[in-house]
């Protein structure tokens, strides 16, 4: 059955999809979102790390290979709000040099846009979502409007860790966060209880349920949940035109048509949908130069821990952390490796769960365990390193031979870390342990290297031979198919991606509204 034609279909009700939906509908367009996951509300955000696992992308699984896997099971979510429903709210701008990596250093890719193109969108989005921070103390911050809210207060853990940066001649600033330090646009301020990873039900953290969803619904956006898109279908008369999308809802196969289709299903699933859309007559949209799925990136990251004499009370604050250091960010070519890096300092942390301090110390068990956990609960400090990943064509998303229960191939991802990026990570981790000691830690240890955030795979560019979409996210050689989200990123920088993907979506919305 083919239903009535919409102006826009958006696939995925996450950070990018809900934002685009709100903006386009407010601009007068009729928008339907097809979301694979369940409908979620604030009341579903139960304060439990165990419960939080319900918010993750469940099925179909993504198989992974390589020496630095992307960690899809941890990094991806599903349902209204997508992965962003329980994201931590670290909202950082990419730096100017992140946009011209190949031009400046001969590695990776360039963006077709520069920082200046996104600046008005960063400024607009930060006012809409509400960010807390101190632009002046953030000495490394690229130009832009100051934050609309003052920074969050510092708790004992951050004060202790800041000494390590001071004592090694480094700098810190308050971490800029999409978390209210004071009431903002009818949403309350944070209570500093550290439950953000399980999802913030109070509205203090700017997850899409409290930012874009109410606006989208008020502007008439229709959301179909449990609607898993399998592929897009080309028009028989004009193959560069995408006629409709096919989706499965409660076992029933359906199609829906629209003038424009935007795939915002997060990096891996967005590429999976495009790859699955190849037919006997036509290749997958965007794969005209065999670039679809390539340049997959994930930030190499890890946490450094320390135990202090002083009381740090690490349950206080927010999951994201309290302080930021970007001292080495802009010197990508500094000796010892390649790429930018940042520290997020003083996370509110729990004893259990994958990121918990008890889990990360398998050497402590038996009768020693509880006394150690009690000590850590009062005296632990922790901070996370995020390093840059470099876009490599061999790192890619492909379709697996296995098919899911709907008969659609699973996604497979392969990701190896470039040796110079791995060297940078090793170098900075050693520095991190030094900083921890300089802060006075009596015992210092580090967690394993993990993949944090998932980017690339449908990279944007001006040259169709080297990219999947143009600078507006339109898939080359199609006239109405778009991609939104971090799949578009040609480089990763070393900052968390949601502010940039939102600024990019704002830029896309402006383009789409200007060219009806």
């Amino acid at each position, binding site marked *: 059955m083919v239903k009535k034609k919409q102006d826009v279909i958006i696939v995925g009700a996450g950070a990018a999809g809900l934002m685009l939906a709100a903006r386009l509908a407010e601009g007068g367009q009729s928008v339907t979102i097809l979301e694979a996951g369940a409908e979620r509300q604030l009341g579903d955000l139960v304060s439990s790390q165990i419960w939080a*696992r319900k918010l*993750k992308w469940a099925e179909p699984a993504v198989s992974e290979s390589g020496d630095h896997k992307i960690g899809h099971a941890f990094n991806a979510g599903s349902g209204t709000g997508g992965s962003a429903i329980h994201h931590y709210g670290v909202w950082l701008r990419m730096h100017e040099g992140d946009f011209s990596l190949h031009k400046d250093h001969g590695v990776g890719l360039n963006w077709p846009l520069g920082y200046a193109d996104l600046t008005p969108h960063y400024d607009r989005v930060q006012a809409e979502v509400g960010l807390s921070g101190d632009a002046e103390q953030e000495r490394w911050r690229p130009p832009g409007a100051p934050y609309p809210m003052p920074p969050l207060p510092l708790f004992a853990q951050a004060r202790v860790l800041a000494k390590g940066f001071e004592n090694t001649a480094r700098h810190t600033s308050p971490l800029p966060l999409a978390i209210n330090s004071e009431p903002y646009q009818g949403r309350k301020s944070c*209570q500093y209880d550290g439950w953000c990873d399980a999802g913030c039900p109070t509205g203090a953290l700017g997850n899409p349920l409290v930012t874009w969803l109410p606006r989208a619904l008020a502007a008439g956006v229709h959301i179909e949940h449990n609607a898993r898109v399998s592929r897009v279908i080309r028009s028989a008369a004009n193959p560069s035109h995408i006629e409709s999308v096919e989706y499965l809802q409660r076992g029933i196969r359906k199609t829906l048509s629209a003038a424009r289709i935007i795939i915002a299903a997060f990096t891996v699933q967005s590429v999976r949908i495009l790859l699955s859309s190849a037919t006997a007559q036509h290749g997958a949209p965007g794969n005209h130069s065999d670039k679809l799925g390539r340049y997959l990136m994930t930030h190499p990251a890890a946490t450094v821990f320390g135990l202090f004499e002083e009381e740090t009370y690490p*349950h206080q604050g927010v999951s994201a952390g309290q302080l930021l250091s970007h001292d080495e960010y802009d010197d990508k070519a500094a000796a010892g490796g390649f790429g930018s890096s940042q520290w997020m300092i003083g996370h509110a942390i729990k004893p259990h769960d*994958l990121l918990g301090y*008890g*889990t990360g110390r398998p050497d402590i068990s038996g009768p020693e365990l509880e006394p150690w956990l009690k000590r850590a609960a009062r005296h632990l400090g922790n901070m996370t390193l995020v390093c840059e990943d470099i876009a490599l064509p061999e790192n890619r998303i492909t379709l697996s031979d296995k098919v899911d229960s709907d008969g659609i191939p699973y996604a497979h991802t392969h990701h190896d870390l470039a040796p110079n990026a791995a060297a940078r990570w090793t170098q900075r981790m050693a520095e991190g342990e030094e900083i921890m000691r300089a802060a006075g830690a009596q015992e210092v240890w580090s967690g394993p290297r993990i993949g944090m955030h998932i980017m690339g795979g449908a990279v944007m560019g001006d040259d169709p031979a080297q990219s999947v979409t143009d600078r507006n996210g339109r898939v080359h050689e199609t006239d109405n198919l778009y991609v939104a989200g971090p799949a578009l990123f040609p480089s990763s920088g070393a900052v968390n991606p949601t502010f940039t993907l939102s600024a990019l979506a704002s830029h896309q919305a402006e383009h789409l509204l200007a060219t009806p």
Partner: protein
Amino acid sequence: MPDNVTRRGLITSTLITGSFLVLGERLTLTPAEATELGFTSDVLSREQLNAIETVAEHIVPGSHRAGIAAYIDSQLNAGENSLLIGKYLGVDTSGQIAFYENLADNLVAALKTEQSVQEIVGALWGDALGTWEGPPSSYMLFVLRADALDVTYGTPEGFEALGIPYMAHIMPETPW
């Protein structure tokens, strides 16, 4: 914050529960209660669960009473909705039962030898148990330890035992 979501209003229960079979009747219980009442397992055998309990208790004391065996068995029964830590580690939910069966069978075999639990656990961390089959024993023990930490300390009662204020926005109160 919506009017119906206030912290104090929501702290009504500290229960994290599941559905357990006790004397032929299906009851909503915490893993600790199910253990105390002698639940009937749905997925793993009693022998397998006993082995899991013994080793888990050795590495995370208190996990037996907190209901590690009941927790694992009920989560394996939850299929796609399982909340076991393996979900984060990329253990496909369709392969979870096989994963835990393999872990349990290896532990059953190890516990039948002359070695003490302490010796067995030491060998498991060092991937040095000759009879071990499947993924490395250190990895599987890491997973079991993480599940044991979840059930023992990942609850309001567990936080209290460590002196951490739980400070929930919404207490976990309906079945997992």
